[in-house]
């Protein structure tokens, strides 16, 4: 076993797949940033809101007013430099930092695929993605290598595998498999799709989508790894993600996943892709085919590998942290984020906050639209950490307005996966007496049903 490990980590492979990955990643990120800007989302999501929901421990990360645009420019530029492989290390570090900063500004916009981009760009910092087909390699022949250690490419496959596999594990629950929820809610609303529209009204279709979705996520990493099923698996990847693109408002994510899956192929296809690009832009690809092999110094290699092992151990453990909390995960959402629980549930809520003067008993309700955007309000109403943070913000606001002895209560209702809405937060708890932490939030009312499974 030890021997196998040692020999595995000494094995080299073509750099081309990693180079293709870098090029596509950089340019797709650039496109994502531009798309985000053109949709007016920078203004709508980060500039207009007067309040932003911070992540616990990252309260210092705030939107920067009009400088937020500069942040996006930096992020887009660094993505471009990653794509062309110019000053790669600096570019990818800048990209990781700026992108992650953007994501940390407001957890309202949390999406698993943004988190995926963050940790993927983090991983890319440590990989020699500029060794081949990059401006860096062109300018400095010393760092140009046609071959790199195999684990460099496999680490990306591992990360992709974790994303899929954990997304599959999360689907093993009674709502998803036995009730076909939430697809039963989502699919019929696509009644206007040609051909599919009628089909999506059928109950059996909802079950078929639920089960095949689960199997797809669990199996696809293995089907992509095994060379005999790889082409078939890639066809599945395309079909699956195109379907999700058709059915759900899911942005760039499907395209990113389709392109990422190319990394599983042998280097032959990547050389062909690079040849095509070279022909298009008049680049001399042959320059990079120098037959040189990159091997890290033993010490550097040990540090790198230890560090990346730690990174992956964290990735493997993090999704299980929900087990440390009592109660139903979907209901409390304690340990829900950063766990590849993708398109897993339909939750809607309504939260009416009440400001009470503890001495006189005088009280009034808060009009949430005075403080939050509709999107923030929607996310706030279904997540306890948002509710708590907002309550403290309201207290600060009304204190400044001269109100005294403030207590804040919330009457809130949440509907989960088509169940009728029920009370969510204990309306007798003065939220100002609660502090955010990683501990279980006792003011969440129990969920009156059971969802079995992982």
């Amino acid at each position: 076993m030890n021997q196998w490990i040692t020999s595995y980590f000494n094995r080299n492979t073509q750099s081309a797949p990693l180079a293709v990955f870098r090029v596509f990643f950089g340019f797709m990120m650039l496109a994502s940033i531009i798309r985000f800007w053109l949709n007016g989302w920078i203004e709508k999501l980060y500039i207009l809101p007067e309040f932003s929901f911070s992540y616990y421990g990252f309260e210092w990360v705030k939107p920067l007013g009009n400088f937020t645009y500069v942040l996006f420019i930096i992020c887009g530029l660094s993505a471009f430099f990653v794509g062309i492989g110019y000053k790669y290390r600096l570019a990818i570090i800048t990209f990781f930092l700026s992108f992650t900063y953007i994501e940390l500004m407001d957890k309202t916009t949390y999406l698993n695929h943004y988190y995926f981009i963050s940790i993927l760009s983090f991983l890319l910092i440590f990989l020699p993605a500029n060794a081949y087909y990059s401006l860096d390699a062109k300018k400095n022949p010393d760092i140009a290598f046609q071959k790199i250690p195999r684990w460099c490419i496999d680490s990306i496959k591992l990360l992709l595998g974790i994303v899929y596999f954990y997304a599959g594990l999360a689907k093993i629950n009674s709502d998803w498999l036995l009730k076909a929820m939430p697809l039963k809610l989502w699919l019929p609303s696509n009644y206007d799709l040609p051909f599919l529209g009628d089909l999506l009204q059928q109950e059996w279709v909802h079950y078929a989508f639920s089960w095949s979705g689960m199997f797809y996520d669990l199996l696809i990493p293995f089907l992509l790894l095994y060379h005999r099923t790889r082409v078939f698996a890639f066809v599945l990847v395309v079909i699956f993600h195109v379907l999700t693109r058709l059915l759900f408002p899911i942005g760039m994510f499907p395209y990113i996943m389709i392109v990422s899956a190319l990394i599983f192929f042998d280097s032959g296809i990547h050389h062909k892709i690079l040849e095509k690009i070279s022909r298009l832009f008049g680049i001399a690809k042959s320059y990079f085919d120098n037959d040189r092999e990159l091997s890290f110094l033993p010490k550097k290699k040990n540090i790198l590998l230890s560090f990346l092992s730690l990174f992956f151990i964290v990735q493997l453990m993090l999704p299980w942290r929900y087990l440390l909390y009592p109660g139903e995960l979907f209901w409390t959402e304690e340990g829900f984020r950063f766990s590849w629980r993708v398109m897993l549930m339909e939750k809607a809520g309504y939260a009416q906050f009440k400001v009470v003067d503890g001495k006189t008993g005088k009280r009034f309700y808060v009009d949430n639209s005075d403080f939050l955007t509709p999107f923030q309000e929607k996310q706030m109403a279904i997540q306890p950490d948002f509710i708590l943070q907002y309550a403290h913000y309201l207290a600060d606001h009304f204190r400044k307005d001269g109100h005294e002895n403030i207590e804040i209560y919330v009457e809130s209702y949440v509907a989960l996966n088509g169940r009728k809405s029920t009370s969510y937060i204990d309306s007798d708890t003065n939220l100002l007496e609660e502090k955010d932490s990683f501990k279980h939030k006792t003011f969440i009312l129990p969920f009156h049903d059971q969802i079995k499974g992982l």
Partner: protein
Amino acid sequence: MIRILRFSILPLLAAMISCSDADETEDDNNTDSFDRGEMLQNWADNIIIPSFENFEGITQNLEAKTLAFTEEPTEAGLAELRSAYVEGYLGFQTVSIFEIGEAEAVNYRANLNTYPLDAEGVEEKISSNEYNLELPSSYDEQGFPALDYLLNGLAETNTEIVEFYTSHENAEVYKNYLQNVSERINALTSVVHSGWKNSYRDDFVANTGSSSTGAVDRITNDYILYYEKFLRSGKIGIPAGAFTGNPVPGAVEAYYSPSLSKDLYLKALETTQNFFNGRHFDGSQNGPGYGDYLDYLNTIKNGEDLSSLIDGQFVTINEQAAVLDNNFVSQVENNNNDMLAAFDELQQNVILLKVDMMQAISISVDYVDSDGD
């Protein structure tokens, strides 16, 4: 391999194209699924257009009565004009929900019923004789609240009020202002109504798409916004001080003729309930509406009987209204708790409509157009 790539790019392109085109796709002739086109047709042909038809008749009469009064201001004429105003304000409650199409383009609701009125502003404009009702800054100086003030709020007695239009130094401007307000109500109503009669009706009915620009999605957002902001908050919550802790009698709708306020509330409530049930404007029968849509979707998901819950809550709200004074100004001044109780009952349906119904029909709240995952 390259062939595979090509194979993968084609569906990608197809996906992008079909997504951007989703709005325009016609509903095919479904046999087993709910026909949203029919629901839109019911809304347009049996509810919205008849409501505007009826209301335009009322606003024409209102304008005519205003003209008659300004030509010869008498107490008898004032009484007649007042009853046209009452009829008009009640009629407005049957169309106010439908802030879509031309109504949205001209900001119909803001023009016709922004209250509380800026009475001082109106007086200033009249004494300077400089005003332009078309400016957005004039929303709170026109419409029914302005009529209310000009017909009921200028003075204590009818004799004194009529004097504003006869012997007051600015009598001419008062007459013109009153005239202009009535004309504008009628003109805007005519614009919105003809919008529906011309092409908008067909666009609306054909727009069966499921995207956020589809007619069902749009009007559902309008409906819930109306229920929450204009019915629950505007008519009850804000006057009752639900959001400040202090009742605000001045924020009651029809503040200068407050005995009308409860009738306005009941009319608006009736309209929202009828729309939920798809009831025709003439009350003759029910066509497809949210109730049926929810029942249809429930045959798929076997959940709670949402349509009965929501309709039942409408009934409860109506029953609660029985204890309310006809005059909401004296209601909030004397027994605000009943007013707050009305707010709480209304609130129950905000939850059922905004959380449960929206989830069931899988429509997201407006303006939330960012990506999901």
